[in-house]
């Protein structure tokens, strides 16, 4: 009895939903960013599982691209967060409400 493709896709969906929940309920920009990374990794897991169970290597290759995009995203996003903290002295999203008025 080996783990099936269904199990991997279910786990990937659950991890994605947990990351999505974190993006929706957390108010700290850094933690929101970590949850975004979690969602990217969940998509990666689904790609690898599909690639393995279908016998092709294409999904594995896409993981490289996802990792590259994630690295670039983390670099730019953390630079934005640091610049935001310098000007506003807070990174709580409910205090960053200048556009509301």
């Amino acid at each position, binding site marked *: 009895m080996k783990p099936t493709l269904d199990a991997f896709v279910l786990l990937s969906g659950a991890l994605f939903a947990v990351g999505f929940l974190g993006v929706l309920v957390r108010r700290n920009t850094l933690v929101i960013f970590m949850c975004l990374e979690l969602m990217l990794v969940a998509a990666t897991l689904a790609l690898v599982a599909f690639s393995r169970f279908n*016998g092709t290597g294409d999904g594995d290759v896409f993981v490289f691209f996802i990792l590259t995009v994630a690295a670039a995203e983390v670099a730019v996003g953390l630079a934005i967060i640091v610049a935001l903290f310098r000007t506003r002295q807070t990174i709580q999203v409910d205090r960053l409400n200048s556009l509301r008025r």
Partner: protein
Amino acid sequence: MEPFAFTCLCVLALAFALGVVLSKNAVNGAMCLLLCLAAIAGLFIELHAYLLAFILVLVYAGAVVALFLFIVMLLDMQGGQPWRFRGMQALAGFVAAALLVAGLDTIAVRGQLGSGPPAPGEVGSSLKLYAYPLFTTYLLPVQVMGFLLLIAMLGVIVLSRRTGEADGPK
């Protein structure tokens, strides 16, 4: 692939992912993210994607989580209030996440994904299996990724200048 190891890794990955969401402290969240990534790397090893597991640990656990911890230490967010639920927003978040997981699981269970064994053949431990598609079929995306990294580097350099100097010529 033993089912026991798979179940353990699943439970660990989900528990640490929930730890990222529910931890009060950003440092604890980053540590939970690190352990969750380690569990997912274990799942990659179960899928025989050894190289990807190595790269995941190297890039994510090595670079990304270290960068997160560095920024958490740098910003030193003592002033921020700890995490708490606030009524409607948290409720809407939970309902949205539950709907998302219900939809995805319906696709996973009812969609005819096939529950057979993994396809035989290529095993992801050989570098050639990755390098050959990267330099033939996916050559254009590789070049675009290079440009993306260059643009990200330039963007970080521009963003991380002092705001006083950046606002100077306004």
